[in-house]
Structures are given as structure tokens and as C-alpha cells.
């Protein structure tokens, strides 16, 4: 069973309106690279020039913020779920 990635509304134009896509990758960083090969242009929306996840993007693996895990190096396995969510909300 591959890893599911939840695509937020602002990026669904790139994924042909797919809300949930599947990847086979071993880390969050690899998953983003795989997304880029399938949906060109998606990586630059998530990753800044310095290679870091953009300031206003939060990425979660199974509900945990990857900044509390190993950022883009966070390992993922079959059945995990990655959520990409705009950081600007709440408060």
C-alpha cells in the first residue's frame, strides 16, 4: 500500500483537481520529488530557493508536523498519509 498525499485546494489545479494522490517514496522529500515528476511545477510551490519547505506551508505525516519529526528527511512507509496544508489559518 503506497503513501497517500492530501493536496490542498490552492494546488489542485496542478493535480487535475485530484484531492488525494498516491506516491511510493521513502521520505517526505522524495515524495515531493515524485509529485514534481507527475505534476510539474508543484515543487516550487512547496519548496523555496534555499531548498526549505516554504514559510507558509505546513506538512504533516500522520497528523504530526514534520518540523517535530525530521523535516524533509522524515521517513514514510506504506499506509502513511501526508497532508500539505496552508499555514495561514486560525488564531
Amino acid at each position, binding site marked *: 500500500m503506497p503513501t497517500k498525499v*492530501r493536496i*490542498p*485546494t*490552492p*494546488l489542485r*489545479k496542478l493535480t487535475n483537481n485530484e484531492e488525494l494522490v498516491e506516491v511510493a517514496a521513502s521520505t517526505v522529500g522524495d515524495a515531493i520529488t515524485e509529485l514534481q515528476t507527475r505534476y510539474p511545477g508543484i515543487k516550487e*510551490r512547496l519548496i523555496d530557493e534555499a531548498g526549505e519547505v*516554504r*514559510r*507558509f*506551508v*505546513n506538512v*504533516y505525516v500522520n*497528523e504530526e*508536523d514534520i*518540523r*517535530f519529526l525530521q523535516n524533509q528527511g522524515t521517513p514514510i512507509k506504506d499506509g502513511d498519509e501526508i*497532508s500539505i*496544508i*496552508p*499555514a*495561514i*489559518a*486560525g*488564531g
Partner: protein
Amino acid sequence: MKALKCRECGREYPLAATHVCEFDFGPLEVVYDYALIKRALSRSAIESRPETMWRYRELLPVADDPTVGVEVGFTPLIKADRLAKALGVRELWVKNDAVNYPTLSFKDRVVSVALSRARELGFKTVACASTGNLANSVAANAASAGLKAYVFIPADLEQGKILNSLVYGAQVVGIRGHYDEVNRLCAEIAGKYGWAFVNVNMRPYYAEGSKSMGFEIVEQLGWQIPQHTVVPMASGSLLTKVHKSYQEIAKLGLADETPWHVHGAQATGCNPISAAQKAGLDFFKPVKPNTIAKSLAIGTPADGFYALKVMKESNAHAEDVTDDEIREGICLLAEHEGIFAETAGGVTTAVAKKLIASGRIPTKDSVVLCITGNGLKTLDAVAGHCGQPREIKPSLREFECMLSADEKAAVSA
């Protein structure tokens, strides 16, 4: 209102229910036509209007007259001489949103704007992710407007705050997790259902409502921008909007552009913004909250980055205080000014005390404390910490015995 504009890249968007830029996820902000506003808005025009936050209507993002929360705002600004003396500063004012209408917190300001705008955009269901006060305000204001409300809160909130949402007939959903998890879920729900989430897809409008607190402070000080303002920080949004309100006041010539400092207050148990400010960083590290100040317990603050920027720009400081200091802050404000604030007010008062003691707020200066919520909603936080009533029989003799014991104790003390 002219458009929505990304704060990061400047791309413009129509005035719809949308909050992030499609290109860099930056926050969208309302753009105004200040030249037009300057012609319509003067001190005398404002002073001739009813005493509510809507007297600054041109600077709030609705297309027509507001329809929800028209009585909100214009809360008292109290000259707090006794507290000033206790904290050792020349002049101190308390902006008391603990008595805001109708739900006793500053959130009535933002909700009034968000729900008025939601109605203009045709929404029938409104929602929010909340640490309590916002849920109360959405529930109450939606009830009076005949809108359906879903409010999402951490399941372990104070009883007072939970009941204060249920009583209005709102759908209250308790999430087993902390606020950041509630927020993440709500961002996902908002993307899926066509509801007006006041602090998600309606956030550009909602957040602007906070400016009214700053406008009122300036007007109530006799059209003067205060030297120092101490603001509690959860997402950091209120701090950025108070700063923006002073900028707009100066830009429109409603008050002289005198220097101001907007200081930020957090609890040590959830201090991502103040820790970053004290370390001189312009980004914050998310934390897992653990504090009695549940209304400020946001470990991943949406406006943290901008709050840091505003404090840098206004040459201001951040500070944080422990749970014991928060309770002491609540008592200081209550015992000196007769104002019972919730835990966030304890944070603000205790942080002001610290900033004055450390000289970062000079003792010769004037300070405004923004008190954002009411102590009656967070009784759990102080229960058992401010003494117990003494019980006696209905007997004059017993009462006099008690008094004379008190007098003896006072003499020997």
C-alpha cells in the same frame, strides 16, 4: 475595499472567501483606497457616530452597512493609576475588552466583521477553529443573525468556555488534541465544505476587525497614539493589527505620527513568538503548548512571522511568563483596578510588569494594556489560588470575634 492582495508576492485576487495565495501560500490582505477614505473620514465624522467599533466603518472590510454585531466595541479605556503605581510606571491605561458585547472578549470585533462579510457573500453556515473565546462569539453572533454555526475546539477547554458556546445552539465539536490540531483539521474541512470559516477562508476580513481595538485606544486617548501597547499573542494577529491601526490613523492624519512600540506577551508554556524575538530571530520554532493560558495556546502561530516583523519595526519587545506569574497578573489587575480578566489578561499584565522592571518600558512612559477576555470564563485557572471565604454562624458575636482576631493578626504582622 478594492481587492485581496498577497502579502508576499503582491498578486491580487477578487474579494471572495479565500485566504491564501495560490502561488506561494502567502496570506491575502484587504486593499483599501486610502485617498477615498481620507476624504470621507475625519475626527468629527467619527465622533458624530454611535459608540461602537463600526464608527471606523470605512477602515473595516465590508461592502455595505454591517448586519451582524452592529453594537460591538467601544469598550472602556480605564486610567489605571493604582496599577501604574504597583508596576512602577508613570501612566497606565487598560483597554477593557473583558466587557465587550455580546460575549465578553475582543473576538466579538473580528466575528462581527467576518459574519457581516459572510452574509454579503451569501453564506448560510459559519464555522471556526477556536481556543474558546472565538467559538463563544461565533456561536452567539450566528444565533442572532440566524446563521448555522459549527465551532471546533480542543476537547479539554475550560467548562465555562464550552458551555458558553453550547448555550447558543451551535454545533460544538471537541477535538481530542491541542489547538494546532484543531486548526489543521479545520483547514482541511474548509477546503472541502462550502462554509464561511471565520479564521480560515474568511481570515482576510476577520483579522481586520482587530484594528478597531487600536482605533478606539487612539480616539479614547484624545487622538494620540500610545507610546507603549502590550498585546497578548496567540496567532500574533492582534499584535499586527493594532500596529496596522496606528499606521492607518497616522496615514489618514487622524493623529500625529508619534513613535509607538507594540510589545508582545505570551505564556512561557507556549512561547514560540517571544522565544524567537528574544533570540533575535525572524522566524519561530513551533512548540507543543502546556499552559493555563489556553486561549493563547497556539504552538504554530499563523502570524508569528509578521508579529516578529512588527515588533522589530516598532522597536518593541516580547516576553513570557509562567503559570504562577499569570495568576499573579490576574490578581494584580483585579485587586488594583477591579477588573477580572481571563488568563490571557494575566499574561498581559505580568508581561507588562516584567518589561517595566527590566527597563524595556521606561518608568517615565505611558502604557496601554490590551485586556482581551473575561475572568468569569476561566474560573478553573484561579480556583483555589485566591483564598477561600470564611464561614461563620449568623451571630454578631462570632463576627466580632473574627474581626478582633484579624486586628490582632494585623498588629502582630
